């Protein structure tokens, strides 16, 4: 079943008098349960792509269907609701609240989506990434790999349709990188859809599908081993 369908999506930024096409007529679809990577050089449009997919931004033109809903024209509040229910974000520099404990950080999406038993759900998510014992630690007391696992737990806690990761291993050593990729693969086996934006070929090689962007267009889209 199609989770996401982009149809001729364009994103234009205005830099003074000049119009910059960050994305220029992109069409693609993502199925439920896929694990894919989006690659490309810097300036290829992959960050814009991630922002659009994650409903952090709206396309200038074209259509974005998510679970059969056209989200390209929704207002800020509806987009915030979608982010809270459908997506989990993982960033290169973790983006954890430094004053809050790991547990509180994981709870954060639940604060905005409502519902009860936050503590318990957050604890379960932390246990899924193997950090049950570090719940009371603050980010500064955790290693880079551990911090990124907290971020993944935060992305998981609302049972999202899609986890979007932006260079998730960019700030990590190779051991931690292995660890994080292993967690994504595990989540994929459990049926969660995962999209990773990366410029590292060996990360992309670990995913079943690679979408390569160049100058705001899809240059290639296919199996990792076919590259």
């Amino acid at each position, binding site marked *: 079943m199609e989770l996401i369908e982009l149809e001729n999506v364009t994103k234009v930024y205005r830099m003074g008098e000049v119009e910059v096409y960050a994305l220029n007529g992109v069409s693609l679809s993502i199925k439920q349960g896929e694990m894919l990577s989006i690659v490309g050089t810097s300036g290829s449009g992959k960050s814009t792509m991630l922002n659009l997919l994650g409903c*952090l*931004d709206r396309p200038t033109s074209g259509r974005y269907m998510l679970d059969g809903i056209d989200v390209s024209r929704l207002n800020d509040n509806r987009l915030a*609701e979608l982010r*809270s229910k459908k997506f989990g974000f993982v960033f290169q520099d973790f*983006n954890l609240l430094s004053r809050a404990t790991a547990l509180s950080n994981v709870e954060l999406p639940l604060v905005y989506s409502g519902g009860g038993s936050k503590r318990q759900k957050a604890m379960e998510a932390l246990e899924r990434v193997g950090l049950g014992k570090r719940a009371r630690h603050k980010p500064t007391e955790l290693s880079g790999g551990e911090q990124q696992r907290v971020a993944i737990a935060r992305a998981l806690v609302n049972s999202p349709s899609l986890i979007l990761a932006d260079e998730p291993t960019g700030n990590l050593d190779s051991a931690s990188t292995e660890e994080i990729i292993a967690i994504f693969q595990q989540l994929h086996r459990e049926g969660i859809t995962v999209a990773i934006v990366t410029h590292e070929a060996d990360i992309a090689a670990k995913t079943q599908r690679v979408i390569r962007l160049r100058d705001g267009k899809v240059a290639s889209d296919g199996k990792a081993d076919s590259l």
Partner: protein
Amino acid sequence: MRFFEALVISIRSLFANKMRSVLTMLGIIIGVGAVIAIMAGGRGMETAVTSTLKDLGTDVLYVQPVNPDAPGAAGMSPGYAIATLTLDDSEAIARIPGVLGVAPTNENFAEVTFGGETLNSMIEGSTAEFQTMSNYELASGQFITERNVASRDSVVVLGSTTAENLFGDEDPVGQRVKIKDKRFTVVGVLATKGGSMFGFSMDEIVVVPITTYQARLFTQRTPGGEDAVQSIGVLVAGPEQMDDVRADIETTLRRRHHLTGDDKNDFSIVSMEQMIGVFSQITGVVSIFLAAIASIGLLVASIGIMNIMLVSVTERTREIGIRKAVGAKRRDILLQFLIEAAALSLVGGAAGIVFGWLLSLVISFAATSAGFPLEATLSPLHVIIAVGVSLVIGLVSGIYPAMRAARLNPIDALHYG
């Protein structure tokens, strides 16, 4: 997101910057404190004055001369003052039904001497009714009698403080004092009454018969050449007869002063209730005026809060981005920063109330030590107003920074710094 969760988030972030929060609150603390102290002090002053006035008796009317040609309410002021009342007027009023007694009274400052001691005292020239009308008790001896008044005796009754200052522990009754170098025999001493009128203690007076006062101490004549009376206190049988007596006094005096038709009264009749009303109004206006000046401090405090909230929003841009990425709506962010500003202001306001209250206690103590008994009173209304004003200040100064925070674009916010 529920209100309670926004509250917890806001309180946590205030605690994370303790020093900054306290410094920001200081503005509100001082502003609210100053306003509260002034309001409490003003109310204390009002209570002090009205209770002194009530002490003089509320079933009393005062008749005083007025210059009918003076503009507006200036007729009783010194610049326009004119003597129109006499002892005969006073006797005519005494015959009106419902009048229990009259106390024609003249007063002025003069030196009172005994042995080597000299005091500048308020000399009251009056009649026997003065004692009842002003609620004085006798400590020893007797008060001025009707016979003293009739025969212009050189007798005097001393207030308790005056007696103590002149005689110390000695019994003054039977002794002779000099007033304006004329000899008077002390016939009685008043019991301590307490209270004061604009700084003059009610126990520092000296009472002599009004006739003696007119003949030997201070001479003032009406345009007709008779001895003048400054004011006539009229003791009325009861509050329900107030209006009738007032009307009768007016008729009697107009007839006696040959006023007809459209002629204006050359006297005024004021009840104690009216005087209390006027004084409450004066103290009320003065304290509101002072509080308005003090509230400039609140304006400064409000700018301080807005400033610190703007800094806080900028500093926490990334945090706002994270919150938005995980699903915070505009109003969630708005609420978080508004609550933060309101909490700063409310806590500051509460501390300001305590600070102001302590300040007003210090003022009361200082005023009382300086001879002006004052008990500052903090009314619940003042507290409610202070809390309300603090809340409004917090919300008003928080709304702009909070809106800036709520409008941040999540993508830009996430990549800030």
